[in-house]
């Protein structure tokens, strides 16, 4: 299966390990992965701040960059939701481009969604290097994909050595929201401290956060507050399990 990675601008700059984990895990599950280097940004910040024409120009570019991809997979739920929820409507007055957008949208998947819906992976043969307790933050824009947190939690629970504890107010926004976190930092700060406090309460070692923006926000607050857990993308956990399991087999 041929998969093209849409890494997203935040992951590219701030969390390249997440991108690499996505590449390696998809390859492990039998995909051939490529990375079209012309990609930039999905246009979400422009769209969300009231600049649809600029978002449209970036959407044209995205659609063009990925025109020959069978599947486009991204580790970030919100970028995927931007594409799925808004790309078609952006071209409401341009039937040709709209057709291209529809075709593109149908090929776009968020990472967990791709693992569970298309690849239908089973992780029960994999185990973590050490026992680890997890909790899971529901990243808001999964709503735009019609997704719940259930598939990610199910995958986690399949891993040998993984323990799961539910997060209180898991579906409450962490306070990222792009420019919101900067312009309304008082409110955003209160929101993210709530999230970190709930995370601390679980006693988990790791909070799974499958979105670049949320991860920056929660991670930054964890560091400032001295939280007892770390923030990871599920791809990083699966990659670690793959590496450990392969290593165990080799020895």
């Amino acid at each position, binding site marked *: 299966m041929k998969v093209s990675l849409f890494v997203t601008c935040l992951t590219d700059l701030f969390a390249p390990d997440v991108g*690499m984990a996505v590449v390696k895990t998809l390859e492990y599950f039998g995909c051939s992965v490529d990375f079209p280097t012309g990609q930039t940004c999905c246009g979400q910040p422009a769209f969300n701040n009231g600049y649809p024409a600029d978002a449209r120009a970036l959407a044209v570019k995205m659609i063009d960059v990925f025109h020959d991809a069978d599947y486009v997979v991204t580790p970030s739920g919100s970028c995927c939701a931007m594409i799925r929820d808004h790309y078609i409507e952006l071209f409401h007055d341009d039937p040709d481009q709209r057709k291209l957008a529809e075709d593109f949208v149908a090929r776009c998947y968020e990472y967990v969604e791709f693992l569970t819906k298309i690849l239908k992976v089973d992780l029960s043969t994999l185990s973590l290097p050490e026992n680890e307790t997890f909790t899971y933050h529901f990243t808001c824009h999964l709503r735009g994909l019609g997704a719940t947190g259930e598939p990610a939690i199910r995958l986690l629970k399949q891993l040998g050595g993984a323990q799961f504890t539910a997060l209180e107010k898991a579906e*409450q926004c962490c306070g990222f929201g792009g420019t919101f976190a900067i312009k309304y930092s008082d409110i955003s700060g209160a929101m993210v401290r709530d999230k970190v406090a709930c995370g601390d309460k679980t006693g988990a070692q790791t909070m799974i956060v499958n979105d670049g923006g949320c991860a*920056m926000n929660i991670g930054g607050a964890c560091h400032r507050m001295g939280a007892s857990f770390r923030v990871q993308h599920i791809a990083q956990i699966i990659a670690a399990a793959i590496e450990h399991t392969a290593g165990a087999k080799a020895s």
Partner: protein
Amino acid sequence: MNSVKESTSPKRGLSLPVFHPDFMAEAHVASADAALHAALDNSVTKKDYGRRSSLAELPDADGLRQLAGDIKRHTLDHLDYYLELLERNVIKHGGAVYFAATHEEANGLIVDIARRTGSKLVVKSKSMVSEETELNDALIAAGIEPLETDLGEFILQVDNDHPTHIVMPVIHKNAAEIGKIFARYFKTPFTDNPQELAEMARVYLRNRFNQADMGISGVNFAVAETGSIVLCTNEGNGRMCTSRPRVHVALMGMEKVIPALDDLPVFLKLLARSASGQALTQYTNIITGCRRPGEHDGPEELHLVIMDNGRSRILAGEYRDTLRCIRCGACLNACPIYRKVGGRTYGSVYPGPIGALLTPLFNGLENHKHLPHASSLCGACFEACPVKINIPEFLIKLKRDEVRQGITTRPERTVFKLWAWGLRHAWSYRLGQVFQRVVLRSIGSKDGWIKKLPGPAAGWTAQRDFPMPAKHDFRYLYKQYRADAKRGK
């Protein structure tokens, strides 16, 4: 009907009253108020969970929400027809119907009815639309005494305060604060026991119901086909207000009409569940006409005031769907921002996500420029809305309107233009990423985090650390990985 005229209030100049104009100052205080957050979690967050579990009991809650939204859309698309049908049927059952273009007209009509009927004391059932018109002030100015009889509204009236939640108006006060207010008002010893406080209000209000000449209610739903006014309440005061006094005046926003009695169960199933997680409110009144010849009770007169106050302007544009709102408050309960700033911060009658949408639509974007932005667009409100108003989508549209109307600042527009231009080409994107990496790495600490960002980005680091970009970006790592694979490493 004379309801297409725009609201031009000489008194306040805006369709909705503005209680607290400085959003940022209010938000600053509220977002640091841990006691407020705990209180809101204990009320709204709990109600949100109640909503979810009570909706989950229905066989197809999502389908029901879709149906409710569709009924509302149909009604709004044919609003003139259904309002005329409602008018005819209310009149048929002995009621009188008035159309008010503005909040002053609505208040004026009600004051006139009070004067004509010689009403001195008016008992009120909880009504958000009467908050919108500031009806109590108008009655007092005319020498008529309004008395709120919903417990929460009564507390607010006694304390000269405003509701901060659509359904739970006094959510911002705890039992001790209410105890102090009652001790002062009733001149009795202080108690913070909720039962005792409720009993004090109950005894007082019982007596006054008997003295009242006129009862004023809002309208949850007005059924066009039958001319019925539907009231959903939990305290029974609504039933007292609409049956004990000689005169009943019902005030409604013109979007509250539904076509037929068959549509009502759809909304009744959703309203209480969405508002409080109850299957139904304690009292559901369907009032069709006033006392008929030979009947022993009920008011002698029924007056229905249907108010526009800016709604037809919203109806005419692309924000029509916002008028579907049934004022259940579910979006407030679900909203992570409401949970951190409370209702007061939103500044006007309708707080929370729906308020962030309605207030600028009613009063003009230029008067509420923070409201569309003070949202993380998380979508919890849309998910909670029983009539499927896509609130985040509309907030984005309002921001687009701000840009078009030149309300946003020039520097902000320039930054977005530059940013968007830079992302149109891979080379300029790369250049931007390299620039960010170099700059951010130069101000970061050894532990890999930035404690203080410069300029407008300082808001971020005022609250939390900012990650330093990795030494190598993904593109570099990926290239290395492929090169290593080729070399058979």
